[in-house]
Structure formats: C-alpha cells, structure tokens
C-alpha cells in the first residue's frame, strides 16, 4: 500500500513538520509506504509528483488551512483531518484511511 499526504498549518514552521514526522512514523510502523509533502513557511518540500498520485492508494490532508493545489488529489480517496489530529494521534488517522480504502 502507498499513501500520499499533504501537511500544512497556519504559520508553517512547527505543526506541519510534527504532523509529517508522525504520519511517516505511524505508516512505517504498519509497513505502509508513505510520502508526505510539507507546505510550510520555507515553501513546499517533498512535493507529490503526478506519478506519486497516480500510484497512491489513498491520501491524507492534514491541515486547517487551504492547501495549495488540492485538485491534484481528486482522483485518490482522501481523508482530511486537522493538522493537530496528525500531531496527536497519527496512528488513528492512518488506520481510518486504511479502513476507508479497505
């Protein structure tokens, strides 16, 4: 299974990166491959490519603000959560997506 994710937060220096770290950790613990794009104050890092999105089984948007270029993820089943949820309990976020895409 391959999951893509986008993390973003109001200021773009802290929660974005905490959420990204936790999503990666939680996915890896389940043996799920993941790529997390961060949209922060320093710009976009690990940007999801068209190839990434084409082969993704599911997507997670962890953000309370409007992310850049959300339309890209339209073809992929997407779970949207607040960035805090991914900071607090990324394991549940991953599990919820995995359940939804079965």
């Amino acid at each position, binding site marked *: 299974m391959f999951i893509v994710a986008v993390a973003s937060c*109001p*200021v*773009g*220096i*802290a*929660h*974005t*990166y*905490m959420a*990204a*770290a*936790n999503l990666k*950790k939680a996915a890896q613990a389940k043996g799920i491959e993941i790529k997390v794009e961060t949209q*922060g*104050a*320093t*710009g976009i890092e690990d940007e999801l490519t068209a190839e990434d999105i084409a082969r993704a089984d599911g997507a997670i948007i962890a953000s*309370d603000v409007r992310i850049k270029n959300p339309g890209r993820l339209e073809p992929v089943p997407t779970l949207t959560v*607040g960035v*805090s949820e991914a*900071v*607090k309990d990324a394991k549940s976020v991953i599990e919820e997506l995995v359940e939804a895409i079965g």
Partner: protein
Amino acid sequence: MNIAEMVDEKLISFGFDAGTKDDVLKGIGRMMYDAGKVNDLNQYIDGLYERESEFSTGIGNGIAIPHCKSDCVREAAFTLVKLNNPVEWETLDGRPVDYVIMLAAPNTSDNVHLKMLSRLAANLMDDDFREGLKNASSVKEITKLFLKYQNQE
C-alpha cells in the same frame, strides 16, 4: 548547520515562575525581547496570541510551543524553559504544561534558520529526544542532545 549552534543561554531557563498561560506568553516573550531576538515586544506578544487563537500550541506530554512569524523578529530563535509549576493550557492530551519551547520566526527568506526551527519541532515527536530535552539540567546536556540527533539523520 546544526540546531546546537542556535542554542542561546539567554533563552534557557531550568526554573521559570509562571502561574498562568498569560504569564508564560508575556514572560517568555520578554525573554525573547531581552535577548535581542525581537525588536517590538508588544507586536511579538500580539502575534503569539493571534497564533494561539487558531488552535492551541499545547502539543502534549507537558510541552507547549507558542510561536509566530513576524516582522518584529530579528532572527530565528527558540526558548527552552522549564516551568517551576505546571500551568493550565489547552493541550492535545489534556495535561498541563511544564516545558515551553517558544519559537520566533522572522519574515525573511532565511530558510536555513526556519528549517532548524521546523526540525526542532519534528524532533519533539521522538519520545527519547523529548524526554532527553525535558530532563536536561545544563546547557551542555542540551547541545549534546541536539548534536546526537543531528548525527542520526
């Protein structure tokens, strides 16, 4: 660059008195100002409150990371402050806050230092790093911890 290079003793306290979240934001905001990281104290504190109004910065495990990005910040900086008594704070796990890592980010294109702040935040998701930081009782222990994590990357 390493986060250890950004450690500023003026922004470190192993026993800070604060009774409320307001005391923390104002008192530790003043530390930033007194250390010369911020050139307008009121503007900086307003920025912290504005960010808190989005959603609280209590990230759980007793840690809060109040922060803002503002023109009044001269250079990227962070505090490492142990509170003498836990204070009430809206946190992700409902526990009060006893350790405050306040971040100050300038409105510049200086990405190197902003990335250091982001890496520090990400490191806080690592149980061993977080406990190591909270248990450190000297600046030397803190820089050693930062260097150790740098080397693991």
